[in-house]
């Protein structure tokens, strides 16, 4: 099945099979945000706690396809202990990777800050999703949900 291995990389399947940082924090003190993909019924629910400007801990539950759940799991690993600015920056880079349309704006935006570009690390494995446009929404669901959560807290 040519092509599928671009989408379903081993590391993605690994995050899907064993999601990291799975669970819920107590709210309050944590903040809870839910995201839905109305087209396919995917759901994620994030609970996270800030310590000053830093995401002290973030846990995830949800149901959905391998891409949405793996992307959420990878995100949970990537954002623990990061500052809100770093997380916003990372989200921009991730979304730029997901969409050619956002790339020009996103990349410019990301590098215009003189903060050194963040390592995408494992997240790079999700690059293959771009070849399957209908799945981009699956990959970005948890990230958009986190942005909503940060906006709700006005941080």
């Amino acid at each position, binding site marked *: *099945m*040519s*092509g*599928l291995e671009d*989408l*379903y990389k081993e590391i993605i*399947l690994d995050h*899907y*099979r064993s999601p990291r940082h799975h669970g819920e924090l107590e709210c309050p003190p944590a903040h809870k945000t839910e995201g839905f993909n109305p*087209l*396919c*019924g*995917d*759901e994620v629910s994030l609970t996270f706690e800030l310590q000053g400007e830093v995401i002290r801990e973030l846990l995830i539950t949800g*149901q*959905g*396809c*391998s*891409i949405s759940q793996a992307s959420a799991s990878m995100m949970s690993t990537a954002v623990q202990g990061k500052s809100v600015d770093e997380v916003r920056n990372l989200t921009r880079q991730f979304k730029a990777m997901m969409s050619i349309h956002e790339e020009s704006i996103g990349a410019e935006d990301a590098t215009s800050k003189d903060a050194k570009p963040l390592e995408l690390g494992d997240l790079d494995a999700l690059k293959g999703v771009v070849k*399957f446009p209908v*799945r981009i929404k*699956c990959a970005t669901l948890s990230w958009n949900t986190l942005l909503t959560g940060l906006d709700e807290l006005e941080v």
Partner: protein
Amino acid sequence: MSLPSDLKSNFPLLSQTVNGHQIIYLDSASSSQKPTVVIEAMNDYYRTINANVHRGAYEIAAQATEAMERARARLATFIGAPSANEIVFTKNATESFNLIARSWGGDNLGPGDVVLISDMEHHANIVPWQILSAEKGFELRWIPLTSDGHLDLSQLDRLLDGVKMVSVTAMSNVLGTLNPIREIADRAHSVGALMAVDGSQYVPHLPTDVVELGADLLCFTGHKMCGPTGIGVLWGRTELLEAMPPFLGGGEMILDVRRDGFTPNELPHKFEAGTPPIAEIIGLGAAVDFLESLGMSNVRQHEIDLTDYALRVLNDRYGEELTIHGPPNASERGGVLSIQYQDVHPHDLSQVLDQRGICVRAGHHCAKPLMRELGVGATARASLYVYNDEADIDALTASLAPAGELFAR
């Protein structure tokens, strides 16, 4: 009699390859493929008689009008309607339901009234009522389901209390369930309620007779029955349609317009404001001719045979690993197979199938209340039509195991 075995050759799209495989189209419940005769009929209209209808006195305008009205007459015969004037052309089944809700509902519903629908309706037969209910304050009530995917009619008498309209699908687009429309219609009529039927999944697949069904109104959509997109039908009994006020206003739907008002046109034009989708109507007429040349009882028999085959081979091979929602017997259902395989997400399953050229739909199929009842967010749905054969089912069956291996936890 059965269907010709080389039917696929009538559908140009089906000779294509995708991802290096001959396409296997198993999504006809979403939209069917179109035979050459339909594509040609629409082309011929544009090439030879393209002109607006019901207006010009010149030759091609007269021919266009005649071709359109001939299609209307063929549709009437196709569904057993007593008169061609009872065939109202709309954009799709969704618009047909909006027409019923706005026109009949707007005139007849208020606080204390009830519209009865069911837990297996498509959003097209839910949301128009919800929109109107928010304005008019009537109650929307739901017929529940049994555990094997039928309508639970055990409490129907109680549910019918105060009901003015029953609006139910003849066949579920998720479960394949064929509903006992005649029985429901008779019981609706016995309490003075009207019976509207969603025929979107029924009319394309079974011989249809509106009088035998006992319906007062029937909605269906052209693109699921070998016809083009952008054309649907509302059928209604003459007296009922005559009593209903116009839906959209504009040209075509009037006899006279004065400063102080207008006089609506006669049926069916009263409900057809503006220039109609002429090519699409002619295309739908050709689709009806095509289906009638096959014979609708042959179409139905083909689907029973193929559904039976699919249920058998899928269950034999996968047993407990596979859930197929809806009634277990092919004779009680249409060729719509909503499947859950191991815990492979429907989205992932359809992606793997796509790599093998197999088109199935993953999602909620515009039936979210039903998905909640089933306790799932989505299903992968394979649906059958005249051009599908056992080889298509075999390809589907063979492709589930590799998907399972890929995602095995």
